[in-house]
């Protein structure tokens, strides 16, 4: 087993982690698919309002690669299709019927899977709506079968503090997980399974297939970070990755012949979360956010975030969980201006620097969606560079992006960036560094493909 340890990053102690206990969520009356949460695809609708669908019926496909289909997370009627900016499809809502029908696929048992070659596995996964679970570095888009990746990474615990710990989703599912890994191995790519030092895996079956152990604070467990610190040559840059929990979906979807919709979501409210809120909920793909909370009304007026504190997006209280999202987080929103705020000693002003008294006594703090300052010009302080887990000199990479010098930005490691957001977190000029790099990277992808 290889150890990958990251020292450069900074630990950020946010209060309100979800307890490692699972509770069954309530039955839901509607579910949704959110095409605009899937990066770098151009969705084309395959249903219209009023259509009846089953669990596993195709809802939309990627215009550029029509064989990638996204299946319905619910059975019932399509009641609403919402569009956003430039008619991007934002939401396909399905009202679930009394009894939900499943589309039937041919079950692939372990023995049958063993006999499949790479193309057969990919086809089987694509038909069952499972292929989008495999994503590709560096663009973090759905993997393309014609790519020749050097490795496939399964990181058990993405260390964003508000995700479902592997101890929770693996419990009782160990054989399923192992069979999922066996299917991935049929892709003809070395499969690497990483565990986090903080969340050691107990099951001997899974221990036997773990290849890497990561140590260090967020984002040490990100597949991009692990890849950066283990790669030896440029050939290894192209890699695939998959979330730990998604391996279970893959295994279940192949074996059962049904589109798997069961998901465990982490729910937490930083600050005034109670044990009733901060826990993991066993629910289904595309569940309404409100169904994850015991008392959603009290949570209005707070910031709702799906997909993690560092990488997620703001959601509305009437929103749904996206395809890749397994966490819902409620934090405080920026509220009132503070009299002479910048002159206070700041014992309770969380910072990675040493400019507030907080530095002497770092304790858990309540997350607040506050910029804590105004945007200014970059003063070249270099704090972004000090925290980057993949050694990008962010201040220079950002200036290359700003000047539209893409070649130069690529040399600086634009494609190594793992979108962790730490540079944006520490920037005293409040520049959206990670966002700028991400936007440029995606534009570069669209240009090339």
């Amino acid at each position: 087993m290889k150890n990958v340890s990251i020292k450069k990053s900074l630990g950020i102690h946010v209060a309100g982690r979800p307890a490692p206990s699972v509770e069954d969520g309530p039955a839901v009356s509607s579910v949704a698919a959110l095409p605009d949460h899937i990066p770098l695809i151009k969705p084309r609708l395959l249903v219209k309002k009023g259509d009846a669908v089953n669990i596993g019926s195709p809802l939309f496909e990627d215009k550029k690669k029509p064989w990638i289909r996204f299946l319905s997370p619910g059975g019932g009627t399509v009641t609403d299709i919402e569009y956003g900016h430039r008619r991007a499809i934002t939401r396909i809502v399905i009202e679930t019927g009394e009894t939900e029908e499943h589309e039937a696929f041919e079950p692939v048992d372990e023995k049958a899977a063993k006999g499949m070659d790479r193309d057969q596995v990919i086809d089987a996964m694509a038909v069952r709506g499972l292929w989008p679970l495999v994503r590709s570095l560096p663009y973090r888009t759905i993997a393309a079968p014609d790519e020749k990746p050097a490795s496939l990474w399964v990181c058990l615990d993405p260390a964003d503090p508000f995700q479902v710990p592997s101890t929770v989703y693996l419990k009782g599912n160990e054989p399923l997980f192992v069979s999922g890994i066996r299917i991935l191995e049929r892709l003809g790519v070395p499969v690497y399974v990483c565990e986090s030092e903080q969340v050691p895996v107990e099951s001997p079956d899974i221990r036997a297939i773990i290849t890497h152990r990561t140590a260090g604070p967020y984002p040490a467990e990100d597949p991009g970070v692990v890849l950066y610190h283990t790669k030896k040559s440029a050939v290894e840059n192209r890699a695939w990755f998959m979330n730990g929990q998604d391996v279970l979906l893959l295994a279940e979807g192949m074996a059962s012949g049904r589109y798997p919709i069961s998901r465990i979501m982490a729910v937490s409210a930083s600050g005034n979360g109670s044990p009733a809120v901060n826990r993991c909920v066993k629910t289904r793909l595309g569940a309404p956010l409100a169904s994850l909370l015991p008392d959603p009304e009290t949570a209005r007026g707070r910031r709702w975030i799906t997909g993690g504190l560092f990488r997620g997006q703001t959601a509305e209280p009437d929103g749904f969980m996206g395809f890749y999202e397994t966490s819902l987080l409620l934090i405080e929103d920026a509220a009132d201006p503070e009299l002479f705020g910048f002159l206070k000693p700041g014992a309770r002003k969380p910072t990675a620097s040493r400019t507030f008294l907080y530095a002497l006594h770092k304790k858990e703090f309540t997350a607040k969606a506050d910029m804590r300052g105004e945007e200014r010009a970059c003063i070249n302080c270099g704090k972004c560079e000090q925290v980057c887990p993949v050694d990008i000199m962010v201040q220079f990479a950002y200036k290359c992006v700003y000047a539209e010098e893409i070649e130069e930005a690529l040399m600086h490691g634009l494609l190594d960036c793992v979108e962790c957001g730490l540079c944006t977190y520490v920037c005293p000029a409040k520049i959206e560094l990670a966002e700028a790099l991400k936007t440029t990277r995606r534009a570069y992808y669209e240009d090339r493909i």
Partner: protein
Amino acid sequence: MGRIEKPLRTLFDRSRPYFEKGRRMERLKPFFEATETFFLYPAIPVKNQPFIRDSLDLKRYMSIVLAALMPPFLFGIYNTGFHARNVSGLSTDFMSVFGEGLIIVMPIVIVSYGVGLFWEGLFAAIRRHPISEGFLVTGLLFPLTLPPTIPLWQVAAGITFGVVIGKEIFGGTGRNLFNPALTARAFIFFAYPVQMSGDRVWVAVRDTAGNAVDAVSGATPLAIAALADPKARIEAVFADSGYTFQTLFFGNHIGSIGETSTLCILIGALILLATGIASYRIMAGGVIGAIATGLLFNYFQSPDLPAWFSINPVYHLVTGGFAFGIVYMATDPVTAPGTDRAKWVYGFLIGAIAVLVRVVNPAFPEGVMLAILFMNIFSPLMEYTETRLRIRRRIPNV
């Protein structure tokens, strides 16, 4: 708190519409925003990932630099007042000395801030960008590098040059090549040498009428060293003129307003280093560079060469503006290189060049200002070199 906060918010909320687009005072919006956010620290919702942000912002950043400038600033006021009263034979009790110092120093500071803010505001209004907090540092750094007898119109001319030519024509804060405060000083130094150097500029004395400022003679250590007999031990020459190492370290001697006390500057340096605002690499590099170059000159000392060659290198650190320059000017993040190894080289070369100019060049008694400005020019090149070296170590990913 609430009693002050509420009326302030009402006041700002009522005035805001006048500064909106299309209204009469639209152009003055940067001033309005700067004032508002000074009193009421803004709470702006985060739009993009990550959804939490560090509490450190540029207001805090620059406030800490200002706090670190307070020890030399306050001591400078005291020291200026002390020497003014001392030569006039007036009593030198603390309160009257400090009062005298305030009367001499504050006009210089006020003119520097006032005129500088005018230019900063003008450019902000035309370019429609916010007023940068960095100016608060420039506006105080500049007066501290001036002799107390400086005419106020020269302060105005200097800060104008510093802000406009040194910063704004390059595109404003973050894009300037030279440290604006030093650019301002260099302009005055070369344009009006009579008021910036020599023996008659260092002690400000008010005449009996109580307002006009006149000057009396007094030589700074740098001037003494330049003229000292090469055969004499220069430390002894200093001591004879009243400049023992202790005097030089504690700073109770004539010189530019804020630069005399190495002790106070050291306190400022500790504030900057403890908070991580200034780079220890630049400061340490500078000290090593000065001492190394001093030792090198010691090696070549001979009776035919100026007395400076033989000085104990530690004296370089406590005389003139060396400490002030290396702590406050060289560490300006915008004009210094932004990479770690380059910072060491940059600091080292500033120390080395400062001593080189001091010791070898008889035309300039002080070399720190020139050394920093000179190295400012090279800082992009150093950054470029280090980024190339670092990029070469990366596994290419395109």
